[in-house]
């Protein structure tokens, strides 16, 4: 089934169309979600939410972008939504920790469970994720889509609805910021 046929099937509410969309994109969506939330169960729950959102909003898809760009865009937006929700929770936890109610810890540090990371790389990847968490939403998205998902600058630009030069700039700043925070971390380790 090509994109147009799949879209027609989805817009007419065909069960086969829904199943085909899940089969085609579930791996991509799951890996994007793991890029933001390296905890398998969380990423799988989020993948389900992304597909529910896709099915609910399929009628709004006008075909201005390709189906894959649209799927990626919905997945990224859902991850960012979840991230903001978590940040609000973290702020509450921080205030609770100030008054001694609860321990404040990084979500990645305490729950890291990424099935795509080998045991020998686990510690180092976990460290990288902890530092990715500190990037701005846009830098983080550009980094995940390009460096982890392997998408081209043009594809990242289409998904983020920015220009290719903006993507280049976001990636450059993301790398600089990661290097800066990692340097600070390793310098502290050496003392």
């Amino acid at each position, binding site marked *: 089934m090509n994109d147009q046929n799949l879209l027609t099937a989805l817009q007419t509410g065909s069960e086969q169309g829904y199943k085909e969309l899940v089969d085609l994109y*579930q*791996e991509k969506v799951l890996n994007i979600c793991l890029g933001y939330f390296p905890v398998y169960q969380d990423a799988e729950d989020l993948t389900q939410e992304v597909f529910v959102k896709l099915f609910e909003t399929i009628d709004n898809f006008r075909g201005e972008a390709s189906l894959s760009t649209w799927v990626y865009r919905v997945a990224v937006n859902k991850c960012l939504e979840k991230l903001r929700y978590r940040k609000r929770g973290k702020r509450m936890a921080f205030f609770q920790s100030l008054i001694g109610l609860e321990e404040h810890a990084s979500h990645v540090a305490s729950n890291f469970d*990424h*099935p795509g990371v080998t045991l020998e790389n686990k510690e*180092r990847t976990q460290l990288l994720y902890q530092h990715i968490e500190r990037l701005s939403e846009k830098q983080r998205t550009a980094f995940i889509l390009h460096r982890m998902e392997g998408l081209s600058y043009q594809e990242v630009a289409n998904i983020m609805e920015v220009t290719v030069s903006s993507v280049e700039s976001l990636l450059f700043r993301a790398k600089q910021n990661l290097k800066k925070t990692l340097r600070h971390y390793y310098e502290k380790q050496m003392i």
Partner: protein
Amino acid sequence: MDKPRQDIEAEIERTLSTAEDIERVSGNPFLYTRIQERMRQGEARSTHRKGAVWSLAFAILLLLINISSAVAYYQKSVRADQAAGIEAIASEYGLDAQESWEY
């Protein structure tokens, strides 16, 4: 560049390169069934929520009807009390409102 600084830079590069070493994770074969279940639960929740909203709206409507009836009854009884009071004063002083206007 001194040795510790070189070591740090090498560590940073190795850590950054792990982003490309992460293997692709394949999807769950039962994902579609789970999504269907989730959508069913969502619909059930939505129906339940709609029911709760209608119940709340009905309760508020009943409350408003009760309050407006109570206010109307109170105003009516105050007006009756006032009229009775005026009549009582008029009769006590031997006044008749209708007659006094005739003069």
